[in-house]
Each structure stands twice: as C-alpha cells, then as structure tokens.
C-alpha cells in the first residue's frame, strides 16, 4: 500500500515536471523541431502514415455521405420538393376529391411572403389510362406548370428525346419505359382516359412531346406529365389544384417553414415535408448512416493503428539515443517533454499533409465516382449511379482529433519508458 502511494506520488511529480518542461522550455521545442527534420526518413514514414489515414477517413466519409445526400437530393429533385401542401385528408385518401380551390391561392400568398422559399409549383395528381393503338397502361397523371416546375424538379433535364413541355397544347411527356410498353414514339398520338371530379369518364388526345428517364423506375414506367390547364380541363376541376410543391433555400430549416405555413394556412390544409412524404427514403438514409458509422469506425481504428505503429517504432528505435541523452544529464521529464514536442510537430506536419492529400483526392473525385460502369440500370431504387463526395466539418474534425491524440499518446509511452530506463540499460539496447 505504501509502495503504491509512493509510486503515485512519484508519478505525479514526474508528470508535473514533464508539463513544466513542456510549457516553459523553449529550448526543448527548438531541439524537437530540429530532430523532426534531422531524421528525414522517419519523418516521411510517420507523415505518410498520418496523411494516408486522414485522407482515407475523410474520403470514405465524404463518399458515404455523398451517397446519402444524393439519394435524398435525387428524390427531392425528381419529384418531392422540400414541402408539399395539400387539402386536408389528402394523405389518408389521395384523390381529386381533396383539392386546393382557387389554384391554391391562399397557399401561394403565404409562400410568396414566407422566408426560405425559393420556388413553388402547382400540380394536379390523379390516375388514368393511357391508350395507344396497340396497347394501354394505367398511369399516374402529374400535371405541372412547366416553368414553375423547372424550379422545383429536374424533370426538364430528364428529357432524353424530344423536348420539355413549353405551353404547346395537348402535349404529354412519358417515360422511355412506358413508350416502349405502349409501342409509341415521339410525336405519337395517345389518348388519356380518366375519371373527372364528377366521377365521369373523360378522354382526351395528346401527342408525345418528349420521353424522359429519371432515377425512379416507378416514374419511368407509369407517370405521365401534362400541362396544368389541360389536366384541370380533363378532370373538370376548374382552377383547383392537388398540391403545391415547394423548394427552399435551406433544407435544414424546412421544419420551421412548415410550422409557419401550418399556422398561416390553418386547418384546411396538410403541409408535409420531404421526410414525411418519403418515410422509406428516411429509413434508407438512417440505415445507410448507421452502416456507415461502423465502416468509419473501422477506418478510424486502421488509421490509429498505422499511426501508433510508426510512432511507437520511431521512439523505440531511439531508446539508445535517449539513453545517451539522459546519461549526459538531461532529466527524464525533459526528455519526455522533448519527445512529446517532436510527436506534436510530426503529427502537425502529418495532418497538413493529410489535408493536402484529402483535398487532392476530393478534387480528383469532384465529378463523382460513376458506378454505372460496373452495373447497368442502377436507377430503380432512386439511387443515383454517380456518387459525388460531400465533406462535412465534423467529418474533418473527427479524424484530425483521432490522429493527433493517437500520434501523441503512441509517442509518449515509449518515451516515458526510455527516459526511466537506467542509462546503462538503454545504451545496451540495439
């Protein structure tokens, strides 16, 4: 017991001495800095270990988060928008019976003055049957204001043949897959039959203006786009609309906007954000995120291992040298302080190199990793086939902290051991 107390006391004294030397002794700092560059090879090895570790972690996090971001952004930019406003009851029982009268005027008025709103677009949604001379298919009808829609979704860019809707009458956009099924092509005439708001069956002719391909195979197979006025006429719904889709400047502040709109618009409407509109997507993202953390952890540990290894070895290698230094009179705590400064400098240089390497990697991957080279038709889950890495601040901070702490701790242990060894013993060390 006494023995233990004595040792603890001694350790306390030792640590204080190290801290004192570390803090006060500018001379040690200078020597340490010189030592870093005296042994160039060792420095290079340590710096490589840290740089590769940092770059590996940063890149893997960026790629992973990039996948998540892209999944969400794709869904938002393909169809969802950030918010949707419907008439009350639409969620439980979607259909033409739930509609916003007056073209959603109240909602639009609120959106026009609300903060964080960059664009809104009116839509009509219903079901119908699309007939060609040879076949017919059940379809979801989505009627849009082409100009406004272009500010919410990337539909205009998804058109692979022909052109986007531009106000020309009786034009329809259909998916490439649907065109194949109906055996129609650009310019073909199709008839859309649907039940109008009175329950009457209505039919109108359209010509295929453009074929599109989106990341959603569901859209490609069974959604058709019309111009808003034409759908309002077909469904005999006057100037009513089914929904207002909203895009915001800042996705993270969507909930605030949602609350504001609910207050503003009252009981008559439902306001749902993209997370509520696509719960499966959110589940996917959560799942992905959790899996990603396991992988991050692995890369973290691998990085820490690599850094610890070289730091341990580089200090053990110097057992003999440290023995020489202590034997000529440098105190143990000062030796430890010096080695710690060295580790700090090494880690610092390594981190800088790591950031440079990460930045280079991110720059090289700025256009994304194109998975479609390895697999065809990756679209159906709404997963984009090109992954563009996205860096978050916390993904930079975490590896930096882990690398620095590991590097310094791994340098400290052998230094303490060497400094406490009797000089004779240390000198005998190879």
């Amino acid at each position, binding site marked *: 017991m006494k023995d233990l107390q004595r040792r603890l006391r001694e350790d306390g004294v030792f640590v204080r001495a190290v801290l004192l030397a570390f803090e006060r002794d500018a001379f040690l700092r200078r020597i340490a800095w010189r030592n870093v560059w005296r042994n160039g*090879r*060792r420095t290079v*090895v*340590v710096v*490589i*270990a840290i740089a*590769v*570790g940092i770059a*590996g*972690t940063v*890149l*893997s996090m960026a*790629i*992973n988060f990039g*996948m998540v971001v892209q999944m969400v952004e794709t869904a938002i930019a393909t169809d969802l928008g950030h918010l949707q406003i419907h008439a009350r009851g639409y969620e439980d029982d979607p259909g033409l019976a739930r509609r916003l009268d007056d073209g959603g005027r109240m909602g639009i008025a609120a959106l026009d003055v609300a903060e964080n709103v960059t664009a809104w677009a009116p839509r009509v949604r219903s079901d119908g049957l699309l007939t060609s001379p040879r076949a017919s298919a059940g379809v979801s009808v989505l009627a849009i204001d082409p100009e406004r829609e272009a500010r919410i979704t990337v539909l205009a860019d998804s058109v692979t043949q022909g052109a986007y809707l531009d106000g020309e009458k009786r034009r329809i956009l259909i998916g490439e897959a649907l065109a194949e099924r109906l055996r129609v092509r650009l310019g073909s005439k199709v008839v859309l039959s649907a039940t109008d708001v009175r329950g009457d069956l209505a039919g109108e002719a359209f010509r295929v203006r453009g074929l599109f391909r989106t990341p959603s*195979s569901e859209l490609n197979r069974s959604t058709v786009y019309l111009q808003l006025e034409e759908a309002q006429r077909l469904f005999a719904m006057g100037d009513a609309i089914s929904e207002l889709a909203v895009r915001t400047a800042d996705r993270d502040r969507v909930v605030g906007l949602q609350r504001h709109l609910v207050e503003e618009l009252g009981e008559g409407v439902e306001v749902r954000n993209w997370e509520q509109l696509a719960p*499966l997507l959110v*589940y996917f993202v*959560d*799942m*992905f995120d*959790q899996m990603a953390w*396991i*992988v991050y952890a*692995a*890369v973290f*540990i*691998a*990085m820490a*291992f*690599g850094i610890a*290894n*070289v730091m*341990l*070895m*580089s200090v*053990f*290698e110097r057992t*003999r*040298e440290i023995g020489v230094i202590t034997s000529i009179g440098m105190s143990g705590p000062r030796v430890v302080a010096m080695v710690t400064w060295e580790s700090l400098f090494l880690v610092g240089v390594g981190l800088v190199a790591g950031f440079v390497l990460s930045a280079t990697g991110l720059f090289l991957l700025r256009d994304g*990793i194109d*998975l479609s080279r*390895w*697999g065809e*038709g*990756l*679209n*159906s*889950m709404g*997963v984009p086939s090109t*992954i563009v890495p996205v860096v978050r601040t916390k993904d930079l901070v975490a590896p930096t902290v882990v690398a620095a702490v590991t590097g310094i701790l791994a340098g400290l242990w052998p230094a303490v051991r060497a400094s406490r060894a009797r000089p004779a013993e240390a000198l005998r060390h190879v």
Partner: protein
Amino acid sequence: MLELRLAWRNVWRNRRRTGLTVAATVFAVTLVVVFVAMAAGLHEKMIEDAVRLQSGHVAAAGRGYFEERTLDQFLELDQELFDELDGAPGVLGWAPRVISFGLLSKDTDARGVGVLGVDPERESSVTTLAGRLKRGDFVSAEASRGIVLGERLADNLDADLGDVLLLFSQSYSLETAYDLFTVVGVIKFPDITMDRSVAVISLADAQAFFAYEGRASEVAVLAKDADHAAAVAASLRTAIDGDAQVDVRTWDKLMPDLVQFIFIDDAGMYIMLVILVVVVGFGILNTILMSVLERTRELGVLLALGLRPGAVFRLVYVESLLLAGVGLLIGLAIGIPIVLYLQANPIPLGGDLAQATELFGMDPVMTWKLKPMNPIGSCITILGVAALAAFYPALKAARGRPVDALRSV
C-alpha cells in the same frame, strides 16, 4: 530455403516489431472478414426474405407470363411437371399459384384486387405467406371458398372475419366468374400496395373460379439459397427439356430492384474496403520500412559479408510476407470464429430500426454470412498488399552500400 530460414529467425528476433506489424495485419484481416460477412449476411437476408415473402428462388411460368401476366400464359400442372420439379436436383420445395385479378365487394361498391390462389401446404414449403397472418386462419387446402385479405384491403372494404364477399372476374373461358367467399383471415403484407390490393384464396378455388383446372400461372421454387438458384433453374430447364412453352427465371430476374440495391450497397462497401485496405497497406509498408531502416547496419553487415543484393531483397521480402502471413492466419483465426458465432447467433435489432426493417418484410435481426470467397479473398488481398508494400523497403535494403550502412547508427 536459406532466406526462408533466415527470415523466420529474423521475424522472431525482434518480438516487438513483429508484434506490431502482425497486430496491424491481424486487425485488417479480422475487419475485412467481419465486414464482408456482414454485407453478405445482410444481402443474403434481404434476398432470402424477399424470396420467402413471395417470389421463390426460381419461378417457372408459361412463356410470356413474366411480361404479360394474363391468364393466357399458363403452366399445365400435370404429373410430368410434378416429376420434373420433384426430380430436379436442388429443388427443396415448390408451390403452384394462380394469379389474376377481380372485383371484390362487401356491399355495393367494389374494389379491384389481385387474386392469389395458393396451395397452403405447398406454399408453406416455399414462402412465409401463411406466417404473416394477423388474425383468423389461412386458406385451407380444399375448395372451401375462404378468402384471406390484406390488412389495408380489409379496412378499405370494411370487412372482417366471417363477412361474405362477392368476388367477380372473368374466367379463362371468357365467362363472367363470380362467387361468394367468406373472410377467414387477415394477412399483413409488408408492401403497402399489396396490402391494399391482394386477396388470397385456395388454389382449388382459384382453379374452379377462373376455369383454370389443372393449370397454374406460375410455380415458385425454393432452392437451398440464392447462390443455388442458377443451378436449380438450369436443372429445371434441363428437366423440362426445352419445352418452349415454359419460362424459368431466377430471383435476380424476378426482382431487379433488389439486385440493384445490393449492387449499390456492395459498391459503397467495396469503396470503403479499398480505402481501408489502402490505409492498412500503408501501415504494413511503414512498419516494414521502419524495420529495414532500423536494421540498416545489420543488413549492411550481411551485404559486407558478401550476401548478394538479390538475396537481401528476397530476405526482406520473405520476411514481410511471413509477417503478413502470420498476421493473416491469426486474423482469420479471430475473424472466422467471430463470424461463425454471429452467423449462429444473429443480433436482434431494436427500436426504430426493427420497426423499419419489418416494413420491408424483413425479420429484425442482423445476420452474418461467411462465404468461401470471403477468407480466400482476404488472403489474396492481404498477401497482395503485403507483397506490394514490401517491395520498396526490400529494394531499399538491397540497394544499401555496405560502407554507408556500417557507418549508420
């Protein structure tokens, strides 16, 4: 041989250095083995759950059925087909189904539904359909005009156990088909659309209802696992012996969405693994380089004593491969039992994740799966990385000039 003996002795001379290098390798190997097994387990589970939910590993149907899905495409359920199914190697179970659609009504208003006619006993040998029952019973084997509804469908029809529903459709013989069915059970389909629109009746009822005696829309086949699907499909194709009227498909063709999700997930994981292996590879490179630098003097002595540079190169190379090899063996020795344990004892998921997983029709457990390619791939990767990593240090050692080397500390 000399190098091998020398190298082996060198490896054990410096325990600490060896320990560190080996530890890094062990860590990498263990990680790779566990991760790959985790992904394989997850994916296999997704496949198996989907397969057991509905599709089977392999499905046989009349030619054109998979595109058209009408009563026009059918399989003749004759003894010949039964023999072929029973005789095909790798077939663990098979279940014939009649699939069509109809109008279902409790009162006046009717709803369009998908009608699934199944043989309950056979169906259980392939899918877990009957196990998803929320209340009541599953359909019985004989024609008894019992109907099992998806939960949301039952809600929408305002129907419950004991209610008598009118099912109306068109039979194969183009006659109006209608009959009264009693709700015997309510089932929970994980897929919302199915839950809203599928009604299950017995195969015998379906055949009578649709004038489809002796016929089925498709036969779902269960194989040992997804990896055996292609072989089973091939043996089935052989068994039916080029019958142009039968189309045999494997699960990946039946569920392309799933294949794509797995591909994306795999791609993400392999990108991560590549980064992990690069990080670990540099760790190995660093430790070997350090050990070479540390031994500059010693290697210089060897060169001074007349050992040829080639021999020194080989010595260092063999040493690092030995290090990696030892690490590899220990890594596999740790990783494989972990995976085998997890494979035998899946980890149950809790909370939100469990709920969400059930949405997809999956059991809320996390499973692992050790495939032979996993340890083999790990060996090749790690040895390959070690071989690459050792190249530069070995070259450096062989290139050292004895005089300089001896002068170094």
